[in-house]
């Protein structure tokens, strides 16, 4: 599956200076792993040493928080968009 992954600007430096990337994978975790292969420095910012997302980095798959789905095991449809956002503040 080919998907678009959008990073916050703060992570662009670790991803070749770009915030928008094309990556492949059957699950969100696979997509992150694919991108981490290209940008190892980015990989350590998106997942912990157990390969899981940090509690303060949120992944949205087509606008849905993956924590309400299957986390990194959430299947990714072809053409989907994953948005990475730091944790959310109060209002």
């Amino acid at each position, binding site marked *: 599956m080919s998907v678009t992954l*959008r990073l*916050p*600007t*703060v*992570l662009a*430096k670790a991803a070749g200076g770009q*915030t928008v990337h094309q990556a492949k994978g059957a699950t969100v975790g696979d997509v992150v792993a694919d991108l981490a292969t290209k940008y190892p420095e980015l990989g350590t*910012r998106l997942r912990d040493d157990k390969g899981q997302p*940090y*509690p*303060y*980095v*949120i992944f*949205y798959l087509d*606008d849905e*928080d993956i*924590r*309400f789905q299957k986390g990194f095991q959430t299947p990714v449809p072809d053409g989907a968009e994953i*948005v990475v*956002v*730091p*944790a*959310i*503040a*109060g*209002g």
Partner: protein
Amino acid sequence: MTPSAAAALHAPRAERPVPGPALSPLTCRLCGAQHAPAAAAVCEQCLGPLEPAYDPVRRLPGREEIAARPRSIWRYREWLPILGAPVLSLDTGFTPLLEAPALAKALGVRRAWVKNDAVSHPSLSFKDRVVAVALNAARGLGLRTVGCASTGNLANAVAAQAARAGLAAWIFVPEDLEVGKIVGTAVYGPNLVRVRGTYDDVNRLCNQVADRFGWGIVNVNLRGYYGEGSKTMAFEIAEQLGWRLPDAVIAPMAGGSLLTKLDKGFSELSAASLVDGEHPRMYGAQASGCAPIVNLVEKGGEAIEPVVPRTIARSIAIGNPADGRFAAKAIRTSGGGAAAVTDGELVEGIRLLARTTGVFTETAGGVTVAAAAKLAREGKLRAADEVVLCITGNGLKTVEAVQPALGAAPVIDPRLREVAALVTAAH
């Protein structure tokens, strides 16, 4: 659209600098990395939250020096991240601390006080404190446009203070906010945008907005500065109690920042030898329809499990709280606790506070009072305790919540005998 126009739309936009106060540098709460002052809330190294780094050997004022200063949040300026003189929102803060003997009796505690931010200047909620700090940070960073993602109170505070400061404002709120909060924002003339979705959807959007347009979104990329304003509520409580600490403090929890910063504020006063007494036990209150921090306190662990909010307490309906784990840690470390209450209980909390103290609070305040009652019933608030309840917003903003629970007032002709009949019936 041409390729160059599309590129311009998607490029971050820098704004021209305007002279303002110098700001504290920032440090990552997780990895300790140092950052220069910036409109940035997360660490480049680990995405952890940034917070101001204060000079540990800076000169601190004593009690008398603080007492001689104007009654605003800025009397505690050495503990705020604006270096030198603030230039905006100089008259926010120093709200009343009301002793509430009838409420203490109802709760079964020795003494109780209400920290009444329902009358905060200018927008009737504690958000005035954090916005005052954030707008000075925006000015210090040379930003001309500010904004926020809001459940209502923050929208009111940003709109009011930005209008006075002459800053452009973009304010994003969930579509279904209470009318009082929509009107209380729109009247100041900001760019007000209602978003289809929950607060968490709005906040996610604002993360992207801050990234794209380079504006100062107070609770996103100015969050490190903004949050420090909440400490002033702790400073005021201690000073108004005669420079001593209460046994217990109860505050509503949304993103978890207020409770975390209250805890930090009390610790900073102790470190500066300004107060007497033990650190208060910290108690957090949430609506049971949106209680991810209470759940974390009760279940243990480190990671928040997000929820989809279902409560009338919209001002604290954040299912995905950024500072939830820090709030839970402060609660545990202080020996406090947490409680969640139903929507029915929070309405009773609003009415109990009104009947016993003469203070009309919004739904978040109702949650705080109802949680205090629940904690007292459970024996977590004790008979010998001195307790402060943080009432963070004004009831006139959410009349819809309490109106159905109130009886209709009688309508009479202007005749004395009709009043007499009512008086007789009342007895």
